[in-house]
């Protein structure tokens, strides 16, 4: 059982460019905007690098940057946990099609961008962060498992941990099988609960399986199309409001991650 504060939140999905926009939708203060296109644009990446970067990297860096800025934190000092169910399905599609058609044409840049930890690597390069950084996947439970891992690391070090979870919309045959049809990314900067910490305070504990929290209606359509949104939605709804409450996220066949919002 660990208590911590969420000092900063980042979020990006087409139509909701940041956490304040998402919170307005979650609290009912605003309706979903007409879906906007566009790409997320992390300010810490030079424009020429942004043009070449995969969507997964842009999304992850955008929300990571937002969470650090909201917390007033120097990203260079923070350990990080990056998580994604699929990594980058568009690169996956490119790699598999190129291997089939002409492997000699493989782009070396696309190849090194195909590693699951590419966003984590770009984040480290952009910010100068040299602390422990990990990248993980856990299927449908990816968001909960990543939050659990971030909390474990915070408890271990007593230092802030940045959680970044994302999945980009798939394309091509592998996209069809994956069933990830929308892009979504969110980031939480977790800090030790010192009593003076800013942001909502949470208590996290693993418990044997119970009734998992429902996805709020405002995010139901997005959750159906993106597994990270589905995993994060109950917690985001809890963080959007002011009231105490709990979010219960399935973590494994026998465990849930239970998050209680503290007053």
């Amino acid at each position, binding site marked *: 059982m660990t208590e911590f504060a969420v*000092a900063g939140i980042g979020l990006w999905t087409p139509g909701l460019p940041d956490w304040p926009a998402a919170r307005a939708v979650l609290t009912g203060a605003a309706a979903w905007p007409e879906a906007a296109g566009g790409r997320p644009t992390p*300010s*810490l990446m*030079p424009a020429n690098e942004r043009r070449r970067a995969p969507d997964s990297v842009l999304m992850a860096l955008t929300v990571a940057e937002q969470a650090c800025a909201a917390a*007033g*934190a120097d*990203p*260079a000092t*923070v350990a990080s946990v990056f998580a994604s169910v*699929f*990594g980058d399905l568009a690169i*996956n599609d490119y790699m*598999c099609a190129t*291997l089939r058609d002409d*492997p000699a044409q*493989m*782009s*070396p840049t696309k*190849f*090194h961008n*195909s*590693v*699951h*930890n590419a966003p*984590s*690597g*770009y984040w480290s*390069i952009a*910010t100068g*962060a*040299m*602390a*422990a*950084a*990990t*990248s*993980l*996947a*856990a299927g449908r439970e990816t968001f909960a*498992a990543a939050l659990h*891992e971030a909390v*474990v690391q915070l408890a*271990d070090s*007593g*230092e802030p941990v940045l959680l970044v979870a994302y999945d980009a919309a798939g394309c091509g*045959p*592998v996209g*069809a*099988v*994956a*069933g990830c049809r929308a892009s979504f990314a969110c980031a939480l900067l977790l*800090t*030790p609960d*010192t009593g003076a910490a800013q942001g909502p305070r949470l208590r996290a504990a*693993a418990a044997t399986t119970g009734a998992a929290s429902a996805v709020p209606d405002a995010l139901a359509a997005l959750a159906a199309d993106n597994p990270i949104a589905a995993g994060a939605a109950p917690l985001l709804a809890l963080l959007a409001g002011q009231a105490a409450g709990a979010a219960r996220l399935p*973590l*494994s*066949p*026998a*465990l849930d991650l239970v998050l209680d919002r503290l007053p």
Partner: protein
Amino acid sequence: MPVARGEPLPPRTAGQGRYRVAGKCPRAPARDALPARPGAGHWLYSRPIRPPRFPSVQACRILVHTATSCLGSGRAAHLEALAARRSGLSANDWTTTPLATAIGRVPGLESAPLPADWARWDCRNNRLAWLGLRQDGLFDTLLELRTRLPAHRLGIAVGTSTASIAETERAYRELDADGGFPADLRRPEIHQPHSLAGFLQEASGWHGPCLTISTACSSGAKAWAAGARWLQQGLCDAVLVGGCDSLCGSTLHGFASLQLTSPQACRPFDAGRDGISIGEAAAFAVLVRAGEDDPANAQHLAGYGESADAHHMSAPHPEGLGARMATLDALRRAGLAPTDIGYINLHGTASRLNDEVEAAMVTGLFPATTLASSTKGWTGHTLGAAGALEATISLLALEHGLLPGTLGCTQPDPACGPQLLLENARHPVDAVLSNSFGFGGSNASLVFTRGNGHD
């Protein structure tokens, strides 16, 4: 020059970032200094990397460990091949399009489908995992612990860089008339990185925390670190750790596109080295919390260290700063000094840059009495499994005193110091370090000890 105590530390942040925002993260209050562990070694430095306000690693005991690679299945096969200096590398006969390189291939996987109950998980990577799991009694240990402990207290943390991508590649070669995956490959669970841990969870009935770590070539080592944290925090009573990566077009042709693959068997640390050889492996261990009543010959994970380079996606930090930080962090957690390390299993991929940087780091940090080698000349670079495979090789060195040399290296690079071992040595060691570094600048180091660890 060997360095022990009192040396100034590399800064924790190199300040290369292009981005700063005002203010600092709220800091945790300093905790009371922890009582020193009995037998704890020396602090490496007068100024630790950060104030030691976290519990130092309570060692994890290794209940059982095993590896399967091109050297064979299980510990004995690896020990025998290492002692005989028999490489498992052979000419590439795996890719559907010819590619002149050497590979470390595990034979027989093509005709060894998973048991029918787990057919939906069937793919080369999980076949290799299943083969590896059944060596050295490890799977029996999983089942036995499952009968003694609640399933939710049993965790799985495993590393892989490519998981079952070979099956996704095959689906693209065999698309149906509508341009979709053929019916037998419409299994979403194998077209994602978690297919390895998902299969292990189903095969073992271990239902606690379950993670796939995918940080390229440091994955297998970082999985050990994740499992160790779960045990230390009391979240699990036993953890299955390790890694599994198998041959696929993505990595063979991908590394070739970066001109990182050698046309022949790799030659780590050799002045004439010209790239890596890719291999496949499955290596696993079961970790439990160390206890007072551990047997005298018990082996432990005594420390781990993790860092990021903040430098480049596919090239190491030129001064090896991140690698050095990971190494020092692992030593600090273990309460050991560089002089305590008898043997280092180096990352040593035989790429021009990695070996140059790693050799300089070892030369600068360790005394001449520490022996170091790369075993990639035997197994090839098994990518996400490398950290796990080399954990087993490190533990064999601890148990048998067999320190493998550097197969394939005859003329060491001038950057190499007296630590580099070319021929095998027989020499008892009490503490072993294993390094793994990956794309994206991901670094991990593990420290293994035997007996009661820190004496």
